[in-house]
């Protein structure tokens, strides 16, 4: 007989298949390891040339290295505070615009809207999330920025043609669907019994939403806002196209500021040798960006998960 337990090919084949499945599931892990390793490795080389404290607390960012090594200021200055400030300014504008719109849209869709309205409005809002960011960037740079500049001029304000406001405003529109769909989910997860209890005490619908539903959904909404913030901080194309290139430490939204992602792109596009502090600086910025967004994401996902468990 050829078929014996020792010769059963099926077992061997299936073991190989399972092995392949396990191997492919490690690719996701390897990606993370690759990201952390490459960012850390290049950043360490950068911090060998520029002290960490200069990078984290320096107020001046001008990475242009001089043509000759013996020239004054040949090393450039790599103080990243103006970049962090610019990133925060634009992200803050985006969140200030997107939070009320996204939240009220979610409340209306979850609590008021008829099912047929909901079925139409939700996909339309999702279109906003599906539009490539380069399209938002084009819109911000060639439509919104000139409008703001013209509008500012007519009321006597000096608006920069690459103002933080234009980039932030358009970025805000981009993250509306993120906030509205996450908030919609958490509002729907609030048990109906809580609403019924409030109605039973004579509260109107809006009072129920404000005093019962929103407080109950608050942790989940906060989680969604953190995810939106992480998205805004890491957004690249809108700011590359609509925000400025030169560093500028200001809180005035009408002026041009630059961001971490803009600097990564400007430092790394174009041909240059890979060993200069200038290109390595991009990886140090990338490391900052990665860890900031990672912390925001971990906290946000944790909050959202905790919140879901609470009502399950």
């Amino acid at each position, binding site marked *: 007989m050829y078929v014996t337990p020792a010769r059963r090919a099926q077992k061997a084949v299936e073991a190989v298949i399972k092995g392949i*499945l396990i191997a492919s*599931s490690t690719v996701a892990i390897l990606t993370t390891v690759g990201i952390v390793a490459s960012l850390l490795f*290049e950043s360490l080389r950068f911090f060998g040339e520029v002290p960490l404290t200069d990078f984290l607390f320096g107020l001046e960012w001008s990475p242009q290295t001089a043509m000759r090594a013996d020239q004054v200021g040949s090393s450039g200055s790599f103080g990243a505070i103006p970049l962090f400030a610019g990133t925060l300014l634009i992200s803050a504008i985006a969140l200030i615009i997107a939070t009320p719109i996204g939240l009220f849209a979610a409340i209306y*869709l979850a609590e008021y809207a008829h099912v047929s309205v909901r079925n139409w409005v939700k996909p339309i809002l999702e*279109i906003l999330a599906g539009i490539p960011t380069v399209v938002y960037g*084009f819109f911000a740079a060639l439509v919104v920025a000139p409008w703001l500049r013209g509008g500012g001029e007519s009321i006597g304000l000096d608006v920069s043609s690459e103002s933080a406001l234009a980039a932030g405003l358009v970025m805000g529109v981009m993250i509306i669907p993120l906030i509205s769909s996450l908030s919609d989910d958490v509002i729907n997860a609030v048990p109906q019994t809580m609403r019924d209890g409030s109605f039973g005490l004579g509260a109107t619908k809006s009072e129920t939403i404000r005093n019962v539903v929103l407080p109950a959904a608050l942790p989940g909404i906060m989680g969604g806002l953190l995810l939106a913030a992480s998205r805004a901080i890491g957004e690249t194309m809108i700011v590359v196209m609509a925000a400025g290139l030169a560093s500028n430490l200001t809180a005035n939204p009408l002026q041009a500021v630059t961001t971490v992602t803009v600097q990564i792109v400007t430092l*790394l596009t174009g041909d240059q040798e890979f060993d200069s502090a200038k290109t390595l600086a991009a990886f140090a910025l990338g490391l900052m960006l990665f860890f900031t967004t990672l912390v925001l*994401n971990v906290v946000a996902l944790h909050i959202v998960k905790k919140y879901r468990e609470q009502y399950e």
Partner: protein
Amino acid sequence: MSDTLTHSERIEAGLAKRYRAEKRFRLYGIGAIAVAMAFLAIMLAAIGIRGIGAFQQTEVALTVVFDETHIKDNNWQAIVKNSMYKKFPDVTSRQDKRLLTHLMSSGAGFYLQNLYRADPSLAGETRTVWLTASDDVDMLMKGAIDRASLQSERRVSDKEIVWIDSLIADGALELKFNTHFFTGGDSREPELAGIFGAFMGSIFSLAVCFLLSFPLGVMTAIYLEEFAPKNKWTDVIEVNINNLAAVPSIVFGLLGLAVFLNFFMLPRSAPLVGGMVLALMTLPTIIIASRAALRAVPPSIREAAWGMGASSVQTVLHHVLPLAMPGMLTGTIIGMAQALGESAPLLMIGMVAFIVDIPGSFTDPATALPVQIFLWADSPERAFTERTAAAIIVLLVFLVTMNLIAVVLRKKFERRW
């Protein structure tokens, strides 16, 4: 008790105010949705208005003589110039002649050259052909250059306008469908710039992205959903995938630059590397969608297969996977649509160069559609703005198509168990 209100009276007194607050709250919600939709509408309209013109291009009908001496010298632009001089015999001064030839695109000569290559018997012949006009003429025809403005403030002089008007009166200057926009590569001259090179770059990148991320994503999902034991290691993989999904795309570009380009020495600007980076980026999306599709297959299917003596691998490959496949494909198409619109990581690996040639393989230097949009948006010429918006329209058409396919797939194969 007549001077103090009863409890119910007090409630009633406040009722009108509370109802007004209720109405206001509701209006805020409607307002928020209206604002979001208005933004979408304004954005699409602004792009549509700017871009629609680029699908047409001004062309001039010229009677050209395929002069054999010029053909021998490979001086095709001279043929174009001569036929312009013949068309306007009154133009004699050197300066005016230069202005006159500027009405035509520098690509007109190439067009004649291609005609001759396709049919060498043209040598010495006379033909009437439609040739591309320069971008300034094009902008004037489309109204982007205002005829009423001062001569010093516009790029087309009064003399040129007189010539253009006489051409229009002859029926020798018309707006025609702009085929070159769909078949040409990038160019410094806006009237010669096309999206085909960038489109092929996108196709090559997406092909690599699909070939890597679809099998890897599906296999990971199968392992995690069907085989993985519940332990620390699988928890780590799960958390890791959820976090990867939220990592900024530019970080994937940095990974590609450090690992694929500098460590593995793969070629810069190649769709191969672009596709690999995009694959890592879309992997989490595909894994999450595939797991949801697997979870939607009811346990009874698995139990029935096991009951018939199938091994767990057979159960999954023969029964669960085919049922979950439509859901997985839907998720993959959505992931591919994301990858098609992504540009930030491609900037990092050098797919942002000025590339005229149409890429023919996975390792040729290339750009991608969104990167081409980014590059054109930076160009100062008015005619490039129009082309940028037109390229955006093309990109959006592709994205809408892909998403519609996903929706149709989902509707067609959706099963209620």
